[in-house]
């Protein structure tokens, strides 16, 4: 077995194992950590596919930022592991069956018969001075400048949305907060003195 195949299968195994653990872990922190592992394994696969920039971005941005964010939220919410196990087990066979069906169907489309090795051969190794970053950059800032800027705007929108959704500080305007008004209890407003 060639080295490439060993690398591929090992990383693939780690990826699938950690994905399964994400789905079935009881503790959400554990699930998050397994997700991190899945990303790392996936980054390895991408490196094998000679997409170095993306592999690194995956680790740095996704793992470093997004998963950290996940962990922040998980820990902030202080979630107890909930006890819905029996329902979990009950639905599992049915869902597994359906998922297996769907995956089999997908295999039919993208399996070896549709994409045989004879027609789709792996590209050769690139030259040593091949810079994936340069290749991406050459296209990104010229042909895809507009989508790039839009992606920036999307991120801005995400920031604004996230903040405005969860902001709980002092409001500058005097609009009525109906949700708060409804939640008022007698103890908040009345203090019996005598």
């Amino acid at each position, binding site marked *: 077995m060639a080295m490439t195949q060993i690398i591929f299968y090992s990383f693939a195994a780690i990826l699938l194992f950690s994905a399964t653990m994400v789905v079935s872990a009881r503790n959400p922190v554990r699930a998050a950590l397994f997700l991190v592992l899945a990303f790392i394994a996936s980054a390895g696969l991408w490196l094998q596919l000679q997409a170095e920039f993306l592999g690194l971005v995956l680790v740095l941005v996704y793992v470093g930022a997004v998963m950290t964010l996940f962990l922040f939220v998980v820990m902030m919410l202080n979630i107890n592991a909930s006890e819905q196990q029996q329902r979990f087990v009950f639905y599992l066979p049915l869902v597994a069956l359906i998922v297996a069906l*769907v995956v089999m*169907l*997908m295999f039919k489309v993208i399996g070896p018969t549709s994409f045989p090795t004879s027609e789709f051969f792996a590209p050769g190794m690139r030259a040593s001075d091949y810079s994936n970053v340069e290749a991406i950059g050459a296209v990104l800032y010229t042909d895809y400048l507009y989508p790039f800027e839009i992606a920036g705007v999307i991120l801005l929108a995400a920031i604004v949305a996230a903040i405005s959704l969860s902001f709980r500080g002092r409001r500058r305007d005097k609009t009525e907060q109906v949700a708060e008004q409804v939640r008022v209890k007698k103890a908040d407003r009345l203090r019996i003195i005598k």
Partner: protein
Amino acid sequence: MEQTLQMMSLGLVLAPLLASVVAGFAGDWIGRRGAHSVTIFCVAISFCLSIYFVNHFVLAAAAPINFTVYHWLVIQSLQLNVGFLLDALSSMMAVVVCFVSLLVHIYSIGYMHDDPAYQRFFSYISLFTFMMLMLVFANNFMQLFFGWEGVGLVSYLLIGFYYQRDSATLGSFKAFMVNRIGDFGFLLGIAAVLASFSSLDYAAVFAKAASLQQQTVTIWYGHEWSLMTVICLLLFIGAMGKSAQVPLHVWLPESMEGPTPISALIHAATMVTAGIYMVSRLSPLYELSNTALNVIMIIGATGALFLGLLGIVQNDVKRVVAYSTLSQLGYMVCGLGASAYAVSMFHLITHACFKALLFLGAGSVIIAMHHDQDIRHMGGLRRYMPVTYWTVLIGSLALAGLPPFSGFFSKDLLIVAVSASGLPATGYATACLTLGVFVTALYTFRAFFLTFHTTPRMDETTRSHLHESPAVVWLPLVILAIPSALLGIVMVSPVLFASQTLFVNTIHVAAHHSAMAELATEYHGAFKLMLHAFVTVPFWLALAGILVAWLCYEKYPASPAWLIKRFNWVYRLLLAKYGFDQFNQTFVVGSTRTLGRFLYQVTDVSLIDGFVNGVAAVTGLVSSVVRRIQTGFIYHYTLAMLLGLAGFLIWLLWG
């Protein structure tokens, strides 16, 4: 000249309508005096114009004028117009209508004096006058039908005038319903005319009538009928409804629920004679069908005798006169069957006078008796109401048919004409009519004696208040008594037997129906006719009737009770009016109700409502099941998406 006549005819017909509208809508504003003044004024205008018309078309024998006032509807080649046909027949009828209407208007000032709905009454009787004149002057079937329905409508409104009373509303319903049945046949007849002649104008129809004499039409099971017979019989069904012939006569007694003036106007003189007028007007058609004439004669004769018999046992003074009207209408219709249209029209005219007189006289008595109408509570009114007494006596003698009063001429000539007819039913008809004379005299004078002679039977308070009615009430009585007495002597020759009879160019008698012609050959003048009466049967029968009435009610007052006991089954049969009402109630009304109930419960409630509600219920049921899918849980939605994806992929790969 013709232009002037057209304008005058328009004025004649429209003046009562104008009065009716003014009195109806502005009644509260112009008050009682305004209402009766405007209506009497307009009807007086119509009356004067109709006198002028009679002078022009009858006495001066001018040619008829047929003109169109207004093109109402044009459907391809069919033109429906509003048009007037001015000739001797319509002029005579118009005079009768306007004369009686005018007198009734004047009479109503006194009779309706205490009624709160005074203006409404005058509006209605003017409206009636308008409708009747439209009917009389019509020159096509559509306008005839308009007038026909219009008088039926106003009759309904007037019978139910005291609408707070249940009996009045029921009576008006009955009148309208039975009329409607007749109108159904009438409408079928008009449709048959339209289908056969492609036109509804009298002129076109009469011109083409002779050519269609042999034509037949198949109605059921391949059985062929003569077209003319079918048309004439269908049109006659309308006359049966409107002119109260057997079996559609049941509405007339109940119509006495209305105020007495309208009983005089509508149910004695004018509306019920519309059928007679219609058959006379359509004489060119009826002459072509012997079968129809035979049927007409039989129905008329049956009504004349048997409905007259019912008058003997009635205790309400208005009902006696109502049954008398039914009987006399039978006489007129029988005369029509004998092709003696002119004699029937003459009897119509004389009957209008003396019957209106009798009704108005009865009204005068009712006013005096404080609206108690039972003749068993009357008696001896002769002393208290002399004018009413003498005028009603003249009317009763005219009705009984004694010379020299007008009723004698018309009724006697009618009986002779019927006996001279060549139709198969002549024998039966003559027998009925002759016996009817006895019956007529009997019930008339029974009521007369019980009311005006015999011992007073009313209570003391009423008796002390008895007095003659005011002038507005007895003046019309006197005015009507004059033609009742003299019209016969004066008019019989000019109307019937002049060399150019008054109804020439209007009434058409076929050569083989020779009754009138035979009559003419035997007629030698009015005076000779009166002398001849002494040797005819009807005269002695009439005297016998008066004698029997006098014996039973004046001389031997206990005899009616004995007769009732002796012939109890006859008495009960007459009281039950031969069971017509029970028959109608059980079969006609009962079957209609059952059908209605069936249609309501089965088709409407179960089928249609069930279907519509069922659709809604099914939708509700289905949706209450389907909405369980919407659980609100994300994982169910995701599963659904997954299943959809799987299905899509399967379809994509193998579909």
